[in-house]
């Protein structure tokens, strides 16, 4: 079967694997050096190394994340304030946005929420909501994001 593999600072890959291989074998064959931990997209718990892909519930065209980081520390800046939280490496930017704009984050109104997006601090990059937070992590397993107004392309 084919599955999507996300990793730290690496292009998204679509790879061919057998569903009978273990998580450990998947990480060993397809992970970057030192990356032994595997998550299913938007699932908090890391997968057991000895479990097969089939038993872990990884199906055709599933998205997984392979990382050396146990958790990713995410810091979001907004309006002169900042809030931090740890996420699994396979958490999508959409999930981080939900937290950052929700009651445990900056508690934006629905109207404000619709007008904002997440961008990588001090860059012009706005990651797609389907990207994994672990893909954006630095060597210290952390990411800084700005909750910024969406650009209106007028004029």
């Amino acid at each position, binding site marked *: 079967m084919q599955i999507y593999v996300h990793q730290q600072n690496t292009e998204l890959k*679509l790879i061919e694997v057998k569903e009978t291989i273990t998580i450990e074998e998947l990480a060993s064959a397809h992970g970057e050096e030192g990356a032994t931990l595997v998550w299913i997209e938007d699932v908090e718990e890391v997968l057991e190394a000895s479990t097969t892909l089939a038993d872990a519930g990884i199906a055709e065209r599933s998205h997984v994340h392979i990382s050396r980081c146990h958790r990713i520390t995410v810091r979001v800046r907004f309006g002169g304030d900042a809030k931090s939280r740890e996420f699994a490496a396979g958490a999508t930017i959409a999930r981080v946005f939900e937290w950052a704009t929700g009651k445990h984050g900056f508690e934006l109104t629905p109207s404000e929420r619709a007008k904002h997006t997440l961008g990588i601090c001090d860059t012009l990059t706005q990651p797609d909501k*389907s990207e994994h937070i672990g893909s954006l992590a630095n060597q210290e397993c952390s990411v800084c994001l700005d909750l910024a107004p969406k*650009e*209106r*392309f007028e*004029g």
Partner: protein
Amino acid sequence: MAEPAKQMAPDEAAFLEDLAGARFLAGDDAGRWRLVGGVDWPFATIAVSAAPREGSPSEFAIRFELSGYPGSATGTPWHLTEGRALSAEERPKGGRAGLAFRPDWSNGLALYIPCDRVAVQGHGDWPTKHPGLLWDPAVGITSYLRVVHEVLHEDDYAGV
């Protein structure tokens, strides 16, 4: 005598490679966009899904002109069955979607977004004002599709 096989141009080969790549396929699998029909180089039509709105289609097709790919691309909002640009009445309204699909820009033949080749040529200040929304040759067609998908899923997108 058999005709010699036509050699594929580098821009067409690069586009086909991106269509088969993980970025495009992941969006296709997630129902965000789909290639409609084949590639008739330098044209390809891709339908992008839209948030549900009463009386509105679930997707909007864009007919891309891709010569020079992955250097740039321009897209026309496209009527799939009639093979023409969408009329003003058929285009998305509200918010950034309404802006992107405005019918009064370039005769409605190009999307009004910074990643569109024609639109950015008409706006010399966009590269500095909207660098995050520019076409990215390293990402290719999905850099354009992500912007279109995003504006069609914003709360202020009002349907047609």
